């Protein structure tokens, strides 16, 4: 082993015993540091993941949704409109949708009820309604065609329903259980759960309930010649707004909503939440700066004395700085990894309880709102450069000043 490595080992050993010597102080320091990293990492993970979730939702949302409007309020959509839309050039496909919100007074939550586009129940269905031709090499395009939720083999038949995870948790029901609904005519409909949905995004499927066309109409009291709205697929994505304009022109009481508008709505929701996160984030950064500054502003008398002794017995200034570097690096790295791991568990497994107050306005359906883990190297690197690097530097700076003190100071030390 080369002397250099052996020397580093000695210095590291000494640093560790130095840290253990001031156990209480260093554990306090480590705890505070870990806490700050934890908050920073949690906000980062959270905002990033929620943006990712939003992107997934948008990928699955239709290019154009057409509603019928009566004096500004949206109304049931007559199926007879479909043919007139279909005849517009540039349109690839038109499908009708049946969906609505149902308020469950028992748990005080709103569910989204949806009748899947093709609910014959004989084929594996998907909630994805736009059919796009994809290039198999294009990962993004593939992701776009991936269904938003999967039935897990459940069969949707009249009298049954398939529920999202949030509903399942909230009502504490699963496959085989019955769920009562109050229908439009005042009758109670008891539907049997035939399965639960799985999804790449909890946000999409959590509050979702799938039921058959027939049951939906009965529950909401919708006549067969009406649907909720229609979704339109265009041949050329560049023509979306032009096609929307044509629909509007042809059906004066229709309101085509294009994906970009939905995007804007989501964006404002996520940005608001992201904004709150930025506030928390900045507060944590500020705390860190104060904390690092406090470290940088000086060494305790005991530390100075020790450095004096080390220099007197033959340590070079650079040796002392190396020791302090290891000290800073060890504390930083420990705090960094602990903080990041805790934040990961916090955000992706525990449902961000620390951010609960900010999140719970979201929906009562997300009692343990579990985000899908999305992490990239960039985030971790940013966090690393925001914490470990400045802290380690802050540890070295005052040492450098102290280390330039003449070693003969040790000769003039009078006892303690």
């Amino acid at each position, binding site marked *: 082993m080369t002397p250099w*490595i052996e*020397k580093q*080992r000695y210095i590291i050993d000494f640093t560790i*015993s130095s840290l253990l*010597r001031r156990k209480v102080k260093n554990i306090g320091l480590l705890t505070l540091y870990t806490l700050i990293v934890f908050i920073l990492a949690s906000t980062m993970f959270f905002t990033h993941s929620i943006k990712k979730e939003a992107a997934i939702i948008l990928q699955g949302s239709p290019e154009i949704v057409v509603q019928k409007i009566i004096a500004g309020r949206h109304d049931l959509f007559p199926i007879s409109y479909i043919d007139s839309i279909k005849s517009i050039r540039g349109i690839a496909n038109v499908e009708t949708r049946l969906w609505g919100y149902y308020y469950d007074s028992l748990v005080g939550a709103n569910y989204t009820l949806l009748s899947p586009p093709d609910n014959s129940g004989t084929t594996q269905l998907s909630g994805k309604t736009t059919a796009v031709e994809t290039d198999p090499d294009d990962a993004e395009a593939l992701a776009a065609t991936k269904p938003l939720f999967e039935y897990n083999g459940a069969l949707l038949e009249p009298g049954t329903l398939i529920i999202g995870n949030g509903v399942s948790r909230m009502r504490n029901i699963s496959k085989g259980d019955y769920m009562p609904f109050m229908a439009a005519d005042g009758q109670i409909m008891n539907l049997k759960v035939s399965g639960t949905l799985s999804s790449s995004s909890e946000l999409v499927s959590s509050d979702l309930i799938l039921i058959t066309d027939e049951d939906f109409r009965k529950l909401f009291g919708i006549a067969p010649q009406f649907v909720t709205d229609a979704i339109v697929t265009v041949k050329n994505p560049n023509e979306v707004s032009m096609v929307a304009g044509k629909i509007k022109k042809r059906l004066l009481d229709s309101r085509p909503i294009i994906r970009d508008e939905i995007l804007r709505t989501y964006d404002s929701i996520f940005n608001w939440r992201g904004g709150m996160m930025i506030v928390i984030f900045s507060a944590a950064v500020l705390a860190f700066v104060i904390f690092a500054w406090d470290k940088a502003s000086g060494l305790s008398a005991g530390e100075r004395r020790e450095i004096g002794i080390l220099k007197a017995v033959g340590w*070079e200034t650079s040796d002392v700085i190396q020791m302090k570097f290891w000290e800073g690096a060890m504390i930083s790295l420990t705090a960094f990894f602990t903080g990041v791991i805790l934040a990961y568990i916090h955000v992706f497994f525990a449902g961000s309880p620390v951010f609960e107050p900010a999140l719970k306005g979201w929906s009562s359906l997300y009692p343990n709102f579990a985000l899908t883990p999305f992490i990239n190297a960039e985030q971790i690197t940013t966090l690393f450069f925001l914490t470990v690097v400045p802290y380690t530097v802050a540890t070295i700076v005052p040492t450098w000043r102290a280390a330039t003190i003449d*070693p003969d100071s040790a*000769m003039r030390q009078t006892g303690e």
Partner: protein
Amino acid sequence: MIELVNVKKVFNAGNPSEFSALNSVNLEIAQNKVTVLKGPSGSGKTTLLSIVGCMSRPSAGRVKLNGREITSLPERFLTDIRRTTFGFIFQQPNLIKGISVLENVMLPAYPLGEKRAHLKMKALNGLAGLNLSSKASSQVEWLSGGEAQRVSIVRALINDPSIIIADEPTAHLDTKLSYRFMEIVEKFKAEGKTVIITSHDPLVYDSAMVDHVVNLRDGKIEDE
């Protein structure tokens, strides 16, 4: 051999508190001899010792170590000389608290990066030589005053220095321990080491093994 030519040391130069601690000191310290620097408090003994031991630089004048001028060397070289040539025994033991006696003793050797097993053996041998074997793994705050001082002696010797510098080594020791210290000094001399001690303790400067006594007063060497 150490040679001091016209060495001056001025503290706080240019300030109202300017103080001249050493005024034109000329001194030769012979090899393998015991030299005692003696003088009243404030006469500049510690200041002189720290210059000889490459701990601080003179404001003027030159210091030569075995014929080599060392005054103008950069810090790194001074540290290197200090580490390999000098062993320091301070007035206070100056041990680092919270770590074991063994670690304290090994501390000066860390920057040299020598083999661990070898270094540990050297340290344990050194401790055994001063009857401290049983204390190797103790914390330093548990040591008695005399033990602490002996530990600091072992630490001074860990890099096998050729010159040993001791500042008022007996100031905190009782008569019996002071004699014990002088026995250790005798052993150093027998091993061929050069010893420089400051003291105003007659037990030290009147001792038979002392070869040379230098009297300092107000930063100057007094002729006998």
